[in-house]
């Protein structure tokens, strides 16, 4: 069983972009601040003029955990699985599973790049995998 994101009015552009293979975030048209998760106005200057921009998709692993004890029935058959925090080069942080990498090889500070995983028909998650070829399984 998979858990799918339920977009709302504020977040739909993010998930629509992921379906199209693009990682995006909100940027303020006035002060150029970039942030995630989505907000109704700029957290730096308060402007309501906001645009969705494509991101490089490159970042670094900030932290990670291997989860052995499922807290929801939908992931009971997935344990153990890894959850990581990725800090993007543009600043925002995303939650990810690290693909194409053995769990034990995941390290804080590791450079990663975005990839898109189709978890259900036409539903895509932005995910990350190591930039360096050496650590891929």
């Amino acid at each position: 069983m998979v858990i799918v994101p339920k977009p709302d009015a504020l977040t739909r552009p993010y998930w629509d972009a992921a379906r199209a293979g693009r990682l995006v975030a909100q940027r303020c048209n006035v002060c150029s601040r970039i942030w995630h998760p989505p907000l109704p106005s700029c957290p730096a200057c308060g402007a309501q003029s906001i645009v969705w921009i494509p991101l490089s998709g490159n970042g670094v692993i900030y932290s990670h955990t291997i989860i052995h004890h499922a807290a929801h029935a939908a992931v009971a058959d997935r344990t153990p699985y890894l959850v990581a925090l990725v800090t993007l080069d543009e600043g925002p942080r995303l939650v990810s599973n690290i693909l194409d990498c053995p769990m034990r090889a995941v390290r804080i500070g590791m450079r990663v790049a975005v990839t898109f995983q189709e978890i259900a028909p036409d539903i895509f998650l932005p995910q990350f995998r190591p930039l360096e070829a050496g650590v891929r399984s």
Partner: protein
Amino acid sequence: MRGSAAIVGIGQTEISRDSGRSEWVLALDAIRAALADAGVEPDDVDGLIRYSYDNVTPAMVVRALGIPDVRWFSDIPFGGTAQCGVIAQAAAAIHAGIARIVVVWRALNERSGVRYGRAERHIETDGPVVYAHGDRTPSGQFSGPFGLHVPGQSMALWAQRYAHEAGLDTDGFASVLGKVAIQQRAYANANPAAMMHDRLLDLDGYLAGRMISEPLRLFDYCLESDGAAAFVMTDAATARALRSDPVYVLAAQQSLFPNSEPITVYAEDLMVHSGAGNVAKLYRDAGVGPGDISVAQFYDATSFMVLSDLETYGFAPRAAGWQYVLEHGIGPEAPLPVNTHGGHLSEGYLHGMNHITEAVRQLRGTACTQVRNAEKVLLGCNGASAAILAR
């Protein structure tokens, strides 16, 4: 506000895995016990505060106890942020003259009823589809699909970052966290009210605990509990008329800053959980410093939070709380005994309210593991809320 309000009554039910009673009954039992301890009647109560997570409403309490004239009531959001938030807001209301005798409660069947260690209450199943919605972390649309579901997993991410910045390897980190868990268990072994009163824990036992979310093992996590606790606060003059040992509120606070929600993963620096200057203001408001604190009761959703709290509240530098624990420990003879009732790890999980009742017992001199000459107690939840109480 310093010293203008005081806690004059505490009440606590049995803490168990299955209370067999409704949360309403638990709340009323704890409140009646706190009122009796304070020596005041329900008729005297004019203010009510609860955690907004509580299922027992102010109206249910007023109706059941027949309180004739409540003039002020309030709900405080979050868990650990509410812990000292209830103290801050009760004291503020009393100081402002809005209320004179305020009752605060938290009642939960968290083990036999809705378990906070499970995510089903936040992630909805609609036929064959399971949806993560909203932007709550954990479990919202940006974390739920990836399997980040409950606070204990967010805290594992904090802890792993901490180990990285502290330069701790897996075994080294386990020895520190284990020391916290084992000491808190020892406190619980001396506390007949603790769920783990009869269960001993040593390092072998700690390490044998199964991994839950690395680097945190079973005994790094709080218990799941049924139970309730309550306290009564009033102005200093009334408090002195009621009893010889009021527990004064020297300072109390809540804290929010962007992405600081207690279980977030989005704050830029996940080593810091308090707004800039907030802890300095706490000590300034109280007129004391870390060196004046006799005992600390830290909101221990996980053992890791004790390390983090030691740093947050000025007992150790950033990423050095682990060294403090190895050097000094947190036992009854340590410079700073911590969670002397066993805490959430080993007494039970009443959302931090049992830390407040223990703080009061320490200052009255009636704790099971009594710290000699306890004069000031720090309550802290990792920067999200804090209070300093004094006799």
